[in-house]
């Protein structure tokens, strides 16, 4: 039976590829079948699928299907909208009162209460539980006791969290943070059922949440089957019967499988195949902006890159990169040359400002050469760009960036790509401060706020400030922006901070990354959210 379907889909895919004609379904002419299950590509999540322990996209995909938090980012606009939150009130931007909507349950029947949130957050913050996302709770009062920088923790629960009723709780922050409610759509803030705490091992084997899907079966490292939860109380019920997530090691294979009809949805079309997408898939392909920006960071702990004048060298390098040509040729326009340090998905009101970078982000080889000379030349006359070679299509663009720099500087050995075999080792070199030149730094937003594009990356000693850049002026502006209750004013202050980043060229912005997805004939209504994750529950299967 299974075999037969393969053959049929293979034949369809071939017919499409060869003659570009449509290939009908089983004769029902594309009417959707609410019970049908689709298959989608997936990557093996690195950590157990706990909400506060998942900090990469693949695990995030699942959490997005099986959990709903207080807020949810609108799949189209990215705006943080109330989901489980009835209301979140504050008078001083520091003390918040949260009221949870009534009527929500977990898929095992447990009620979602204020306690579900408080327990989950306490679990996530506690040092004992080794949660990778613990720092998301760092603004909440009492974090330094639950998660001290060293030594044993002196408290098990955050003193800033208080359950005040069945469905209400209060949050006290250590400082003013006006946009705090908007961060609550992030997975780390999801509620957890008692089952999670009572039998943790069983929960991790088969997670239970409160989202539109249930985990039906989970074979680690190979496949997860999710099915629609028919009693899901939320407004965004799944439009399909379920999703089978299949693990692929190589996104090229996933794409090949899509073409052969073995897979319905690929959400990361490999760079090498972008040129064929139109031919292979026709209009069954989507390419939308996502909250991802690629940059080149610099090792500011290395004096060669942190001396007077080296900002000119950095600016010169930036101007030696022909972003337009690289995004056109290597990425087939699935990236857009960056002109600031945020992302277009924020929108003008959210803080995105096209052209903030000015001519420093334009390709001007002559001026690039001049600037680098004025700045004292490249350290040692050479620059290496370090990246990890095991994931993504990094090799292609790093080579292209280097070739562009070499051509601009008219020295074919000026820039060398330096691949590091594994991501783990790449991270090691970064944390051990071993970088000697610019290195790949990608940023995928956690929540669509300009704060998230600046503070974690450029604030002194921030969690993702890999280059160890430090600037008083920038830090002050960010502090002031966080305390500002008026959103527009806060955004204005963040943009001022961003200008400081620009004037120092703390990192070279390369391009905004789009999310891309390709799908089979069976699917319709495929969308990607601003995090470049497919909106699975809206997909219709025929």
């Amino acid at each position, binding site marked *: 039976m299974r075999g037969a379907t393969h053959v049929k889909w293979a034949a369809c895919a071939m017919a499409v590829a060869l003659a570009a004609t449509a290939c009908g379904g089983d004769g029902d002419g594309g009417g959707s079948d609410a019970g049908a299950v689709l298959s989608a590509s997936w990557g093996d999540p690195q950590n157990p699928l706990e909400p506060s322990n998942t900090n990469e996209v693949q695990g995030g995909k699942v959490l997005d299907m099986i959990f709903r938090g207080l807020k949810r980012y609108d799949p189209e606009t990215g705006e943080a909208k109330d989901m489980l939150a009835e209301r979140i009130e504050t008078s001083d931007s520091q003390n918040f009162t949260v009221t949870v909507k009534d009527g929500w349950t977990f898929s095992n029947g447990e009620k979602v209460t204020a306690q579900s949130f408080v327990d989950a957050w306490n679990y996530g913050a506690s040092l004992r539980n080794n949660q990778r996302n613990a720092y998301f709770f760092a603004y909440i009062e009492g974090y330094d006791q639950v998660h001290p920088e060293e030594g044993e923790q002196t408290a098990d629960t955050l003193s800033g969290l208080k359950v005040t009723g069945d469905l209400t709780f209060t949050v006290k922050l250590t400082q003013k943070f006006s946009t705090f409610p908007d961060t609550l759509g992030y997975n780390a803030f999801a509620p957890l059922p008692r089952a999670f705490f009572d039998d943790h091992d069983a929960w991790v084997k088969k997670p239970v949440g409160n989202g539109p899907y249930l985990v039906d079966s989970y074979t680690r490292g190979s496949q997860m089957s999710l099915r629609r939860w028919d009693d899901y109380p939320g407004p965004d019920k799944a439009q399909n019967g379920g999703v089978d997530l299949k693990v692929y090691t190589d996104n*090229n294979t996933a794409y090949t499988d899509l073409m052969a009809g073995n897979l319905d949805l690929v959400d990361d079309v*490999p*760079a*090498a*195949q972008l*040129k*064929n997408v139109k031919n292979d898939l026709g209009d069954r392909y989507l390419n939308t902006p996502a909250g991802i920006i690629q940059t080149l960071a610099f090792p500011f702990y290395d004096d060669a890159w942190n001396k007077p004048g080296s900002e000119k060298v950095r600016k010169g390098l930036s101007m030696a990169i*022909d972003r337009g*040509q*690289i995004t056109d*040729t*290597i990425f087939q326009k699935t990236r857009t040359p960056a002109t600031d340090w945020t992302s277009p998905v924020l929108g003008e009101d959210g803080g995105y400002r096209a052209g903030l970078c000015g001519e420093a982000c334009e390709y001007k080889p002559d001026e690039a050469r001049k600037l680098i000379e004025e700045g004292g030349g490249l350290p040692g006359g050479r620059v290496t760009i370090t990246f990890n*070679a*095991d994931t993504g299509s990094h*090799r*292609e663009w790093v*080579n*292209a960036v*280097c*070739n*562009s720099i*070499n*051509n601009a500087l008219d020295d*074919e*050995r000026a820039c*060398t*790509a*330096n*691949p*590091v*075999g*594994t991501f783990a*080792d790449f991270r090691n070199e970064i944390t051990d401060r071993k970088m000697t030149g610019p290195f790949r730094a990608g940023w995928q937003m956690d929540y669509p706020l300009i704060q998230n594009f600046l503070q974690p990356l450029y604030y002194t000693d921030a969690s993702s400030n890999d280059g160890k850049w430090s600037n008083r002026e920038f830090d002050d502006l960010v502090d002031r922006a966080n305390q500002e209750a008026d959103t527009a004013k806060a955004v204005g202050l963040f943009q001022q901070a961003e200008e400081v980043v620009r004037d120092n060229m703390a990192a070279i912005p390369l391009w905004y990354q789009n999310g891309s997805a390709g799908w089979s004939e069976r699917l319709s209504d495929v969308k990607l959210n601003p995090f470049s994750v497919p909106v699975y529950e809206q997909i219709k299967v025929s």
Partner: protein
Amino acid sequence: MPDHQHEPERAIAGTGMGGTMDLGVDEAETLEKRPGVPDGRGPQEPPRSLWSDAWRDLRRNPVFIVSALVILFLLFISLWPSAIASGSPLKCDLSKAQQGSRSGHPFGFDGQGCDVYTRTVYGARTSVAVGVLATLGVAVLGSVLGALAGFFGGVWDSVLSRITDVFFAIPVVLGGLVLLSVITSNTVWPVIGFIVLLGWPQISRIARGSVITAKQNDYVQAARALGASTSRLMLRHIAPNAVAPVIVVATIALGTYIALEATLSYLGVGLKPPSVSWGIDISAASPYIRNAPHALLWPSGALAVTVLAFIMLGDAVRDALDPKLR
């Protein structure tokens, strides 16, 4: 091709990565053989005549001549690539990416807009360097350890043989991934060093086997009875007779090492830019197989021809050196 009738024999089996093929000899002391069991090696002749006979054979063997010519040509372009390619392999223009061949650029351009012809010519140097140097390292280390084990026997043999087993038991590709993933140097040395580290047991077993066989020959026993020193025995009497199988296996292994370099590059742990190698180009071009097959075809073709040349050379040399087949 008359000389193809000469049979490749078990030495070829020694080229499987990580396999142990040298049958029987390894556990020779535990095998109680009845007379007449073929031990895989014929009666020994005086070294001079063996080598000169072999050379006479080879000169008339078209397989040898063709492969030797190919190898000479490869050596030539490895040393002077600019003689036949005028451009620079590092000069790339993205606007020409994936374009096909045209005048002045017979092989077209790769995904980065680099000239495939120039890169293929320059790639020969790295690939040949990896092959030749790794083989030299493997051959020297392997034969020394193998000969020590075979000559002294006893505890020496047991210990060395077990060490050989240990290295044999590690899958090669796996070892490469682990060891090379942390190397940051962009020279060819880490790759060569790795191949030597995991490749020597193969030669070592063969060397040990042939030393044991040679040791038992009458003239060696006679020399020993006449009071020849250990080093003299080793160098004058045993080594010349034991070296032939090593040469044969090494030549064939050379080809497989070149292919191994490409596989390592495919897995992302091989050579690094600005090195220019076929492995790098093949792995870079393999995702683009549908749009720019030429960028994959030429370096793969060059690699295949090179490996082929070395394997055929090894085959021919073995045929010539095996007196039984004469």
